[in-house]
């Protein structure tokens, strides 16, 4: 009944009465909340008392409570797969207004479920061994954090880094917003520990070139990039159980926006070029003069229709950090901060914004899509450049004097990220970021078991978020390692060897790379640990040689028949 959720539209008593008249049905009961403890207890009691061997619950969506009722079956000593749910809430009572028709539909749905459950088989989930070694791709802050977390727990970690040093993008930064910790301090400790850690094996100037196997039992091939002549450059093969991908981001190419004249005007620089200046200790124009007017332009490449629609998240606070650093270095400088919206979302960010206001940073707002234009100034203007923009808060068309313009370049997926995605078999969104298995509840897992993602290769994020993700991924892996084995869902597909013609049609279709061709026997087989039971191969197989467990043709057709038959 689900309280009144179902009962106010569907006449549940009528449905129960109808159902009890169907052959093979031993018992049909209604209850106020079947998912509650007394409700489950009732099911368990009935199974034991009446020796029931198939159970149908007509209630909400299986997404909600299938697991609850399967557990009830298990407690009663019955195989959990001998169960079917008829969804008469989301697909019936919530979407219909006429009680009579809704009751008829509920009857049909329940009848269909009964027809299906007759053909259910007892299935057992299986378990596979878990290799405790882990591969971490990318040696930035996320990769290093994850590697240390895993190695400290006593596992071997293979850390693959493309460059000849660790630190990633963070190594290009001076201070970090909003607490102005030195990035070098954050990194040095981690790098030293990694280099001295016996259980972390770092591969510099290398890349992951191949990954085979499945969760708990991967084989990874690590290859040196541009092997130097005279040196032996053999690919290394390692056995691992899980992979964390932390390949990070690359910055947007500012010269793509012609308005800003990056590359043409000498004193228009990107945020990373300014970081370099700050680290050398002198913020100056190309002619070596101290800039009196500094302008910072936000959202370069981000939040626009032409380039990237997303927000790069870190630039607003980084811009405030620059305002602070420039003002500290040259107190005579005036800083104009030209932004679309000030995103001060994180801990300490709003206070940092307030402090920047107090330091007299001039905040100028422009409309998304109505970008500022940078002109070269004439000698009488007393400055290098003039930035013309429609200022939103005053409603005026203004020009801002500037000697140095800093472009806050956004984050982009790396151009080689599709290569990684292909090797470890994960998917990318339209912008090239790796897709998590659930954006809210599974932020570091991917749709491929055993492959985790963390840091800015998933989406733009700041350091605390990257570190949190890295540690989350490490925690997920450690939990599996400590178990030693991993349960694999019984819902997978299997190839019937005698029917398979070896056409390999399914091999390419499988979205999880779970189907492999056996060259000796000349037919395909499915690695059950990788298979998610999506059914693509079942539908595609021209010889009907693949069977989806728990979704056999017989079961599905019986359900369809039950739904549409006249007496139902």
């Amino acid at each position, binding site marked *: 009944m689900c309280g009144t959720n179902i009962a106010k539209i569907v006449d549940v008593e009528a449905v129960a009465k109808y159902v009890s008249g169907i052959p093979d049905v031993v018992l049909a009961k209604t209850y106020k909340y079947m998912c509650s403890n007394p409700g489950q207890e009732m099911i368990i009691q009935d199974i034991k008392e009446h020796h029931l061997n198939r159970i149908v619950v007509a209630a909400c969506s299986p997404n909600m409570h299938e697991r609850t009722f399967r557990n009830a079956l298990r407690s009663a000593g019955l195989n959990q797969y001998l169960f079917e749910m008829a969804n008469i809430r989301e697909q019936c009572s919530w979407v219909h207004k006429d009680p009579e028709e809704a009751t008829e539909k509920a009857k049909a749905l329940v009848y269909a479920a009964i027809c299906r459950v007759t053909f259910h088989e007892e299935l057992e989930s299986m378990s596979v061994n878990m290799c405790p070694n882990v591969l971490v791709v990318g040696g930035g802050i996320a990769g290093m954090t994850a590697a240390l977390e895993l190695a400290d727990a006593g596992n071997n970690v293979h850390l693959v880094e493309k460059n000849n040093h660790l630190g990633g993008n963070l190594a290009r930064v001076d201070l970090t917003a909003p607490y102005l910790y030195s990035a070098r301090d954050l990194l040095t400790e981690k790098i030293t520990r990694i280099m001295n850690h016996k259980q972390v094996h770092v591969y510099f100037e290398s890349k992951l070139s191949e990954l085979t196997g499945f969760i708990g039992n991967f084989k990874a091939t690590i290859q040196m990039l541009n092997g130097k002549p005279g040196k032996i450059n053999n690919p290394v093969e390692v056995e691992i159980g899980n992979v964390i991908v932390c390949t990070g981001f690359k910055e947007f190419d500012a010269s793509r926006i012609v308005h800003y004249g990056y590359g043409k005007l000498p004193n228009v620089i990107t945020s990373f070029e300014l970081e370099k200046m700050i680290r050398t200790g002198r913020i100056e124009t190309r002619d070596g003069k101290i800039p009196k007017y500094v302008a910072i332009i936000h959202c370069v490449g981000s939040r626009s229709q032409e380039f990237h629609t997303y927000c790069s998240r870190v630039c607003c606070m980084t811009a405030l950090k620059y305002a602070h650093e420039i003002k500290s270095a040259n107190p005579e400088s005036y800083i104009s901060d030209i932004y679309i919206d000030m995103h001060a979302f994180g801990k300490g960010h709003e206070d940092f914004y307030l402090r920047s*206001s107090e330091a*007299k940073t*001039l905040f100028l707002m422009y409309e998304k899509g109505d970008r500022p234009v940078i002109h070269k100034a004439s000698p009488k203007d007393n400055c290098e450049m003039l930035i013309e923009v429609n200022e939103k808060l005053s409603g*005026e068309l203004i020009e801002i004097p500037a000697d140095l313009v800093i472009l806050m370049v956004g984050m982009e997926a790396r151009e080689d990220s599709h290569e990684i995605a292909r090797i470890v078999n994960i998917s990318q969104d339209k912008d090239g970021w790796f897709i998590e298995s659930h954006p809210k509840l599974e932020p570091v897992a991917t749709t491929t078991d055993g492959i985790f993602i963390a840091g800015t290769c998933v989406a733009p994020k700041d350091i605390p978020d990257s570190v949190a993700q890295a540690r989350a991924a490490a925690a997920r892996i450690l939990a599996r390692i400590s178990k030693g084995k991993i349960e694999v869902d019984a819902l997978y597909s299997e190839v019937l060897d005698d029917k398979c013609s070896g056409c390999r049609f399914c091999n390419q279709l499988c979205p999880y790379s779970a189907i492999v061709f056996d060259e000796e026997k000349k037919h395909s087989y499915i690695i059950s640990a990788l298979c998610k039971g999506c059914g693509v191969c079942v539908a595609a197989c021209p010889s009907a040689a693949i069977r989806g467990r728990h979704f056999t043709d017989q079961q599905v057709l019986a359900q369809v028949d039950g739904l549409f038959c006249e007496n139902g």
Partner: protein
Amino acid sequence: MAIRVNPTFIDELDRFGAEDVQLCYQCGDCSTVCPHADDVYKFPRKSMRSLQMGLEQKIETTLEPWLCYYCGQCSTQCPREADPGETMMSLRRWLISRYDFTGIARKFFKSRLTEVLAIVIVALFTGAFLVYYGLSGGSIDIYDGEGAFLPSQFIHRFDLSIGSILLIFLLANAIHMWYLVMVKGTNFFVPWWLYIKEFFQLPWHFFTQKRYSECEKKQEHPVFMPWIIHLGLMLGYVTMLVLVMVFIEQLQSGPDIRWSVHIFGYLATIGLVTGTLYFIRSRLKKSYVQYKKSHGTDWVFVVLLFIIVLTGILQHIFHRTGLNELANITYVVHLMGVVPWLLRMPFSKWSHLIYRPLAMYFAEIRREALTRQEEIIQSVPVLIK
């Protein structure tokens, strides 16, 4: 044409008292609570923005700062503590220095030392001149009539000459204000007869300060208190100015008291004393928002006024009780305060006496001209298409 932003302007206005304007993030709460802001004159939000961005050409032609009477509601309401009320005040100070073509006002506002020094020098000069004149032509024992230390005819001529200097400066500044607001800052047509039609605004606002009273409605002040006190102070000041400029001979005359003149003198004194004491007390206690911050020039203003009022009363008492010598000395001290006070007026906050009614007058003219223009545009929409 794009307007040039001047990022350094905010630092300059700091000296005029706008210390917190950089904190403003343009939420507009201030304009919502302001009893005076409307569709045409959007302040303090817009004024704050112009100031932050340093749009000097815009600010020098606006009337908004003069339309604000600093009730302080905006500052109480401001979520960023950017103090819009004080910002409007500092914009008034800046505008006074902008209208003033001599650049003296600017110096006074930016440096308290310069101002105090200038006042002391003028006071000493006045004192020296008066003592020299008194000793050369009369006796310190005689207050009035033959052989008087400072004969009333002489003081009359002296007052008039100081008054005309004052008037010349004030007029020049007022004309400058008219040029900035009505010519440079008005990009629409203003018919000449509107100046005549709206002329009544000038005396009306000058003598009633009606807009100030409107500030009080939403406040927790004792009923209309600052408005009444301010009105009393202002009327007292103007009455006294008229008495001194026109009726000095009757004021200074012998033991026969002409009540028709003196009753005004006493009333004006009451207004001045109450007002001065009230404002000094409020500034010391910082009782209301508008008295929380006192610019250097504000203190010079109330303290100097207090000295003048005090010596004026003392001189009157000594004169009436026949202590002629003491009366003459306090008279000199009194004038040593009055002369710098009067000469300072065009360059100080006191000049708002002129600018405020003028602003109200111009504002109404502009408003009416704008409505007329809109009506014309609406009546011939085809032309625009």
